[in-house]
């Protein structure tokens, strides 16, 4: 057990534990935000695990999650739009905190990798992760009302 896996364990236990509590209780607006945060927390944890196991191919899991996590949140934002419109979630503090955590993890893992193609891949994953989650949060809080609803 090295420091990377320990960090991933802490992130998973504390972060996803909190997200699970958020998704299980409270009003709908808190649950959707917690679901979005869970994907945004697991993606850096997967990067840490990949570094901990020294298996660079495990990074692909984080790449797929960074792509599909926001897609899943957009599904909820679209199909629960009527229920969310009355009581839109406002959670920019949490969004930016988790985005900052993702940026820190990507930065540290990139620094450990050193300048190479693998580092550019990590930076691409970081950009996808942060951009996707900001877009998903904006969609949840009704930022794209103009887009057709049905």
């Amino acid at each position, binding site marked *: 057990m090295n420091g990377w896996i320990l960090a991933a364990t802490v992130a998973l236990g504390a972060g996803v534990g909190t997200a699970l509590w958020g998704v299980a209780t409270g009003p709908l607006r808190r649950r959707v935000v917690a679901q979005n945060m869970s994907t945004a927390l697991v993606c850096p944890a997967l990067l840490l695990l990949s570094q901990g196991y020294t298996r*660079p*191919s495990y990074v692909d899991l984080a*790449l797929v999650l960074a792509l599909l996590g926001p897609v899943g949140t957009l599904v909820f934002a679209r199909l629960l739009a009527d229920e969310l419109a009355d009581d839109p979630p406002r959670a920019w503090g949490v969004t930016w905190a988790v985005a900052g955590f993702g940026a820190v993890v990507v930065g540290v893992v990139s620094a450990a990798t050193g300048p190479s*193609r693998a580092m*550019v*891949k990590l930076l*691409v994953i970081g950009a996808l992760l942060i951009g996707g989650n900001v877009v998903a949060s904006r969609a949840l809080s009704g930022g794209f009302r103009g887009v057709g609803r049905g």
Partner: protein
Amino acid sequence: MNRRTTLLIAAEALAWWCALAALWLVLISTVDTLELVVGASAAGVAALAATAARRVVSAR
């Protein structure tokens, strides 16, 4: 379609191809000739599709 729009379309497809080929180059694990050939052709197809899709969306 006059000559200027044709030139614009070609430039846009070329820009898409550069970006997509660079993305392929970053995401593959080992760089060899076969990967480069496959990546270049896949990026070409995707660039044509992206150009067409963007034109349809912006023409709406």
